[in-house]
């Protein structure tokens, strides 16, 4: 009687079924693959974004193209003069922006230009860049901003 009872217990397998494990992992994998946007640029300028309240979220990250404007980060940690960066390159001549952005617009007709501008940048430069965007025909822009700090 007693031995029979013990034998029965030993027969039941207590392992977790792992057959579906790859499927579960693949599902997670696919989710992250789809939601990932690989960071392909090194930002060479400081872009401390201003804070704002009237923010909208941009869900279509694939339509976005970034323009960074801010003081250049020097190797010794100091900040240099204000520069414009598109993709990986600093732009020396502002008027080149129209060609660069026009080409991007041809690739993606629904392009949204996200302007990541440092809060200390001057309006003269911001306006000049905007004029270039008008020349290029990339009229949908977005001033990147951080949400307002919670009131303490």
């Amino acid at each position, binding site marked *: 009687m007693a031995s029979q009872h013990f034998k029965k217990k030993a027969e039941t397998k207590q392992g977790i079924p792992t057959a579906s494990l790859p499927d579960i992992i693949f599902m997670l994998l696919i989710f992250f693959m789809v939601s990932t946007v*690989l960071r392909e640029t090194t930002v060479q300028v400081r872009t401390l974004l201003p804070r704002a309240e009237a*923010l909208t979220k941009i869900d279509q990250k694939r339509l976005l193209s970034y323009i960074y404007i801010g003081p250049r980060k020097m190797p010794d940690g100091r900040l240099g003069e204000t520069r414009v960066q598109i993709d990986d390159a600093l732009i020396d001549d502002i008027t080149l922006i129209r060609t660069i952005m026009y080409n991007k617009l041809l690739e993606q007709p629904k392009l949204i230009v996200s302007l990541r501008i440092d809060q*200390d940048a001057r309006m003269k430069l*911001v306006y000049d860049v905007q004029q270039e965007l008008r020349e290029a025909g990339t009229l949908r822009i977005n*001033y990147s901003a951080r949400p307002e700090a919670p009131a303490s």
Partner: protein
Amino acid sequence: MAGLLKKKKRQEAEIPTASMADIAFLLLIFFLVTTTIDVDTGIGMTLPPKLEEDQEPPPVRERNMLKILVNAQGQVLIEDELASVQQIRAEVKKHITNNGVDPNYAESPQKAVVSIKTDCETSYNTYIQVLDEVWMAYFELWDAEARKLGYPNYNAYRATLGPDDENQIRKIIPAQISVAEPDC
């Protein structure tokens, strides 16, 4: 003959799937590490299309234009009167919802334009603060319109719209913000 069949059966090729989970895990960890979940937030704007050489900008009647001037020190003038950044929202709302009552403000929400003009040396931060206030005025008016239609707020109304549906609220109160060339 029977033995031959048996032999064929035994040769059945199988891919070992035991390591599948490990491979998937490796890839998963890679994407987990490289993913940035944070959503970009910002203030959306549409620039006016480029004008032809001989083309004049469309005329706007003086009363329909609310002029906001910001100087290099961050001081604000609304219609040539000194104001603070916090006052902008109320002024813009008053301007848009005037409906022709006050002769200094707009004739109708459809005709109302808000013009922002900065100085060359105005900081971007100040500009965004001013622009933010103007947009908040619009958002608050849109929220009010949405409540009239029976939605809790404007975002709830917008969520009900399909990609091809016309946004009725923005038709009633279109956001018309013009950014003028900075003074140097």
